[in-house]
């Protein structure tokens, strides 16, 4: 993970108590900003990234040299318009892009912390990122937005800080990680643990790298981000640079080759231990359990206006789970809008070019920013 010098950093000196009971302090958070914070400081949006995302939401990612993960939605003239809004996106703790995580170098040993890193939760991630408001002296964010694990962070954020965001937009997410999703995450973790190069998490010290395990974890997860229809239309049974089956275990089919490629590029930019920690945090996420089984209670003090978005072909975080958030909010009379966007692109829809999604998101932000400003005058 070189080139990280190009990312912005703050060191959080205040101690933070984690859900596991441990306390951390003097730890780094890496972040990026897009657009300009106005004088009134009322145009700030905090964007939360998903499992394998990072702070490089838009523009060129200096690690991969590819476009940032939310380039379709975030940028000048885009739905989250950086001509208008000041967008902050931070790497979650547990991540591997400069924020405090298992690949952070332990000052005492001079080696990565590895599996000595504490197990963290979505709540811990959000509490760490909250410090960015203070850093920028922002009293109230215009919006908090995120998809997938980013959406979970949105929910946790408004629950923890009920008057710190005018607008909350959780996208393609859930308030409680399902058994199926825990199962998929476990599959990924087991692939990493089964790689003999994992070395109990001390692979850097052993000068090895559990690339195969991490690549398989990514391959399995990648399937869950797409839809059956999308896969069939894109790949079908098309063969990979060959006219007939080879009667071997090579990648005969394009879909095999595609998955192998996805796995191989992933290991260049992601840390295996981070994958373990972050998937664990997702599995532990159960917002209603934090409020004795009453999800509505998580939002009882909220002043935010909510917009929940799901996608028709997302079977990882299906509409029904997103609707549960809407139902919980309606039960307490919160201001909540909801739409399920038609898309064949599966869970990944929120990251891709889905015009109906991008237009609705963009218009929603624009109109509400105007309304909130008018109210203030």
């Amino acid at each position, binding site marked *: 993970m070189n080139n990280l010098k190009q990312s912005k950093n703050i060191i959080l000196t205040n101690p933070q108590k984690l859900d596991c009971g441990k306390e951390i302090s003097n730890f780094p958070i890496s972040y990026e900003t897009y657009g300009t914070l106005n004088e009134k400081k009322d145009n700030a949006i905090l964007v939360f990234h998903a499992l394998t995302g990072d702070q490089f939401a838009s523009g060129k990612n200096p690690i991969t040299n590819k476009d940032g993960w939310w380039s379709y939605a975030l940028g000048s003239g885009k739905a989250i318009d950086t001509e208008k809004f000041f967008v902050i996106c931070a790497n979650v703790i547990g991540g591997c892009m400069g924020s405090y995580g298992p690949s952070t170098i332990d000052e005492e040993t001079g080696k990565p912390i590895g599996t000595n890193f504490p197990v963290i939760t979505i709540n811990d991630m959000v509490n760490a990122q909250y410090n960015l408001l203070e850093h920028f002296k922002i009293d109230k964010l215009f919006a908090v937005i995120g998809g997938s694990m980013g959406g979970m962070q949105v929910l946790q954020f408004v629950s923890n800080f009920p008057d710190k965001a005018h607008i909350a937009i959780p996208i393609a997410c859930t308030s409680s990680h399902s058994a199926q999703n825990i199962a998929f995450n476990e599959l990924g973790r087991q692939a990493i643990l089964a790689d003999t190069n994992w070395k109990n998490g001390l692979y850097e010290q052993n000068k090895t790298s559990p690339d195969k395990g991490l690549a398989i974890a990514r391959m399995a997860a990648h399937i869950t981000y797409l839809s059956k229809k999308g896969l069939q239309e894109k790949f079908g049974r098309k063969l990979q640079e060959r006219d007939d089956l080879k009667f071997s275990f090579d990648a005969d089919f394009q879909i095999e080759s595609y998955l192998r490629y996805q796995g191989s590029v992933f290991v260049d930019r992601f840390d295996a231990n981070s994958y373990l920690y972050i998937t664990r945090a997702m599995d532990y996420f159960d917002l209603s359990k934090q409020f004795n089984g009453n999800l509505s209670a998580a939002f009882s003090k909220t002043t935010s*206006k909510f*917009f929940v978005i799901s996608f028709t072909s997302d079977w990882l975080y299906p509409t029904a789970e997103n609707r549960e958030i*809407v*139902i919980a909010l*309606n*039960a307490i*009379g919160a*201001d*909540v*809008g*909801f*739409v*399920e*966007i*038609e898309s064949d692109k599966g869970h990944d829809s929120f990251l891709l070019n889905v015009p*109906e999604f991008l*237009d*609705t998101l963009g*218009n*929603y932000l624009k*109109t*509400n920013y*105007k*309304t909130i400003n008018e109210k203030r005058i």
Partner: protein
Amino acid sequence: MKKEFKVISELILKNSKVLDVGCGDGELMKFLKDNKTSQIRGLEISKNRVQNCLSKGLTVIEGNAENDLKQFPDNSFDFVILSQTLQAFLDPEKVISELLRVGKKAIVTIPNFGYWKVRLNLLIKGTMPVTENLPNEWYNTPNLHMCTLRDFFNFCSKREIKIFRSLALKNDKTLNLSDKNLAWRNLESQLGIFLIEK
């Protein structure tokens, strides 16, 4: 704006909590938001229309009155509006009881199947009526349970639903509607507007 919407908005008290069921593109919601109350929500089945509403800053949830009203607690709104869609539900009786559970009052508007042109259509032509208000053929109409103004009066009295106010629209003219003038109104008006309560 449609005359019907003007009449509906006159029935709604300032700063009350309102739910517009089947809010369409949010025309009535927008008018109510600008003139009556900021506490207005919508429920709409069409994705495109929901997206339109949300783009305009209106708080709308994608959903269907038959399945999705159950997420709202009892008496969570002062007024629940249902404009010209009661006849399109599989179970209108259930929808009415849900409207009256979620809302303290409901405003229901009904395209009148007792309107003279409709009656004449069936009497003279011997075919299912097609009029300006009911433009579909029998095989493609979304309207499963058409009723007349008298039918709705009868329904309310059978189910012990109080009719707080009732009005009829005749060519965009608002007329009083009561059991006394029902026979005539049921013949001359295209639309009935009912403010009802449990």
